[in-house]
């Protein structure tokens, strides 16, 4: 498991740093939080600790180099799989803006995509811990019966799995072969980094990271500024699903992934042109109707949130939007977004549905006046005509600012989006 070391941002207005000295060199072992390098900026020499323990496998910038904040300057390969217990106050990699919790673009359970690497780390450490708490005999029995000790509730000292525990487990498992075979799916919650969920921090007081502080301030300020109202619409995604299935292969060849989010973004872009007050801002007593439609798509990161913006989203084709969404999300996660890609948004889309929420009540991303939350899209029972059917359904919720958008206007906007999605013109692909 490799960890990127980035040039940290040592202050709000600081855009770059100069490497003064590498304390550790390629091949050296370093512990988490051990000083790794020294950087300097304007009369300040700062010692930067390593974000992970392991061996320094690559150094990408040399002593004397000046590099932009957030660029990767080294890579550390972890030699031990340790649980991501404490949240280190992240000093680096904290770009602007914040949003309500959202997740990867694809509305399908995206946890499989991120759970991969982290699941194994969680399981390794858990197993190691449990193993340390059970005797060699118990472990041998477990091996012989192909049982994962981590699954068994230990009644011994400090939760140790005793001989009786494991034999009891095996006999009941024999009656239910499925249960024994299934490995414990590391809860998806574990795959969302411990840093965000506060895993392992009970009893501790931890200072907020710069990014967390900004998010906190932004959220509270937004609530104070806008007259938040929410409206929720249910959308039948059958037509979109059909088109998606038909065009999927074609899109993959073009290097894009045709997601529900791309369709939704396109529908929203058109609706913003049809109902311009939703693509506006409030300045004093004025309503500023924006010239362009720049849609931000919220991406959840291990260390926080970021909203990369697709400029002129209404001029892009469905393919163009798919590509832009995928590209921005990838670069967001690898900390390669440029400053002008996280600013200038006029509307935001967030995706609480990716982690299972039916719908969200998102907070408006100031200075915008509305935000769309995409709920979980999945097969649900729905009445069509007078018959009960099963269709891919999803809820779209709009958070809007009642200072300039009235309920009827919000609903007109949402009806527009719903209509576009439910009767998608298949030539518009």
């Amino acid at each position, binding site marked *: 498991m490799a960890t990127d070391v980035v040039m940290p941002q*040592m*202050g*709000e*207005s*600081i855009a770059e740093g*100069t490497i*003064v*000295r590498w304390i550790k060199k390629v091949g050296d072992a370093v512990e988490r*939080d051990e*000083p790794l390098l*020294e950087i*300097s*900026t*304007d*009369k*300040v*020499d*700062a*010692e930067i*600790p390593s974000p992970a323990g392991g061996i320094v496998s690559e150094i990408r910038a040399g*002593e*004397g180099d000046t590099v932009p904040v957030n660029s990767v300057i080294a890579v550390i390969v972890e030699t031990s799989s340790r649980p991501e217990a404490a949240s280190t*106050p992240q*000093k680096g990699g904290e770009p602007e803006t914040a949003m309500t919790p959202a997740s990867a673009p694809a509305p399908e359970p995206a946890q499989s995509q991120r759970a991969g690497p982290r699941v194994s780390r969680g399981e390794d450490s858990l197993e190691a811990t449990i193993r340390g708490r059970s005797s060699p005999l118990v472990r041998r029995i477990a091996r012989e019966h192909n049982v994962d000790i981590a699954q068994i509730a230990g009644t011994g000292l400090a939760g140790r799995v005793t001989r009786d525990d494991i034999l009891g487990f095996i006999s009941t498992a024999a009656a239910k072969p499925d249960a024994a075979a299934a490995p414990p799916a590391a809860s998806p919650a574990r795959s969302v980094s411990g840093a965000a969920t506060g895993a392992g921090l009970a009893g501790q007081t931890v*200072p*907020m990271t*710069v990014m967390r*502080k900004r998010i906190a301030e932004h959220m509270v300020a937004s609530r104070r500024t806008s007259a938040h109202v929410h409206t929720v619409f249910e959308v039948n995604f059958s037509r979109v699903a059909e088109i998606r299935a038909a065009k999927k292969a074609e899109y993959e060849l073009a290097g894009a992934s045709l997601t529900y989010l791309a369709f939704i973004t396109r529908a929203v872009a058109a609706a913003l042109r049809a109902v311009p007050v939703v693509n506006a801002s409030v300045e004093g007593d004025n309503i500023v109707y924006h010239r362009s439609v720049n849609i931000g798509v919220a991406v959840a990161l291990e260390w926080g949130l970021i909203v990369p913006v697709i400029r002129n989203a209404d001029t892009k084709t469905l393919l163009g939007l798919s590509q832009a969404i995928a590209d921005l999300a990838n670069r967001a996660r690898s900390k390669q977004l440029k400053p002008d890609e996280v600013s200038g948004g006029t509307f935001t889309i967030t995706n609480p549905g990716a982690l299972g929420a039916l719908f969200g009540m998102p907070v408006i991303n100031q200075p915008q006046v509305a935000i769309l939350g995409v709920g979980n899209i999945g097969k649900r029972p729905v009445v069509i005509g007078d018959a009960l059917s099963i269709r891919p359904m999803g809820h779209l919720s709009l958070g809007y600012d009642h200072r300039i958008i009235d309920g009827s206007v919000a609903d007109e906007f949402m009806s527009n989006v719903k209509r576009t999605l439910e009767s998608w013109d298949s030539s518009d692909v």
Partner: protein
Amino acid sequence: MRPLEVHRLGLVPYLEGLALQRAAVEDRRANRVGDRLFLVEHPHVLTVGVRRDGGRSHIRASAEALAARGVEVHDTGRGGDITYHGPGQIVGYPIIDLKPDRLDVHRYVRDLEEVLLKVAGDFDVAATRMAGLTGVWVGDEKLAAIGVRISRWITSHGFAINVTADLEYFNLIVPCGIADRGVTSFARLGCVASQGQVEDRIAARFAEVFDRRIVPPVSLTAARDTE
């Protein structure tokens, strides 16, 4: 308000000061002590910052000349270029934790400038900042210099302000690598403040700018005795 201990240590050889700072940073990091501000005076010394460009190349005098005048030269772990410390100059070392709400190194430097600007104002000296040139200036002469080290958000090194220092010693170097500006002091500006009076104002203004409340200094080694 967080407490701040102010330790006025008088004349301290530079290397002792370095060792003191290193120990203080570790103590602060381990939370054995709170935030502290050390105010000291050093015997004549040239100190070199960490940046590769500059530093010793900005020493104008030969090693023999320096030795003859009793001037030591030392590397430090701080940012900034080369500077001179000597009697008549107050050197301040705030060893404070910038967490949780001051995680911005540029802001820290600006705050240090703010402290010194206010101190100058207290003595009716019209000091200013100069864009792009960290430090405190009167006209185009430098009254106070700043050079900082930050290690996991604990600060060390700090600032130096000329009260009655013999400014001739600055001719041994290109101060901070800035060749075309001079240096000045309270005395040169006609201000008769004593070292003690300036230290008083530094402590007060530091507490104000950094939002700390001054508490009586505990013995330097108290924290260690209890281990």
